[in-house]
């Protein structure tokens, strides 16, 4: 997995390529958290176009960032979600608290 970070004002756009599991979630978490703190990020956009796989470890890290961002008064959005990832977002109930789009 590799991630690309782009900051637009107080919004952080994270483009993820590859698989999100327990192993890669650690990298995701540390890189995104560092950027959130460094640049005083308020809103987070997760671009999932390049995500080829995600399991419940991915849910854990998204929820973790969601808590941080909502504590800052911001919003989390997941865009360009693929069907397999959509299924796990649906089961986890994440789609009821986040804005998700295909």
């Amino acid at each position, binding site marked *: 997995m590799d991630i690309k970070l782009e900051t637009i004002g107080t919004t952080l756009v994270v483009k993820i390529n590859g*698989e999100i*599991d*327990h*192993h890669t*979630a650690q990298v995701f*978490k540390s890189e995104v958290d560092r950027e959130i703190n460094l640049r005083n990020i308020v809103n987070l956009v997760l671009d999932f176009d390049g995500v080829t*796989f*995600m*399991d*419940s*470890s991915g*849910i*854990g*890290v998204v*929820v*973790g960032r969601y808590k941080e961002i909502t504590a800052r008064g911001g919003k989390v959005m997941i865009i360009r979600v693929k*069907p*397999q990832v959509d*299924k*796990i977002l649906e*089961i*986890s109930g994440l789609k009821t608290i986040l804005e998700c789009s295909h």
Partner: protein
Amino acid sequence: MENYMKLEVPAKSINESFVRAVVAAFSVQLDLSVEDLADIKTAVSEAVTNSIVHGYANMKGIVKVVCKVVDGCIEIEISDFGVGIEDVSMAMQPLFTSKPECERSGMGFTVMQTFMDDLVVKSKPGEGTVITMKKCIGG
């Protein structure tokens, strides 16, 4: 004789992607749909991650995988010899996690149950856990 395969890896998180890819590759012979194969990959990833994170609590150990093709179904057995689960039915509750501080979602067993046609969890504290799951063509 029905087709089968056995796999053994050390409980290292880098092996999560390897195991799910191998099991998916083995399952291809069943002519399952792309969605079914994705479901198998996800369920296997959950089981292997559980063994690493909970069974061995990130310590050394071995995860064993046995896959069998039986009557148009793939049977997958994932075992560890770690700490085991005290209360299996509690562990299987959606959102239950023994490690909230590690940002575990508590959705592992729910995903396995939802994505597979059958799931059996056998565990003994101090001995380990065996997860058996099944996916059938058109299941």
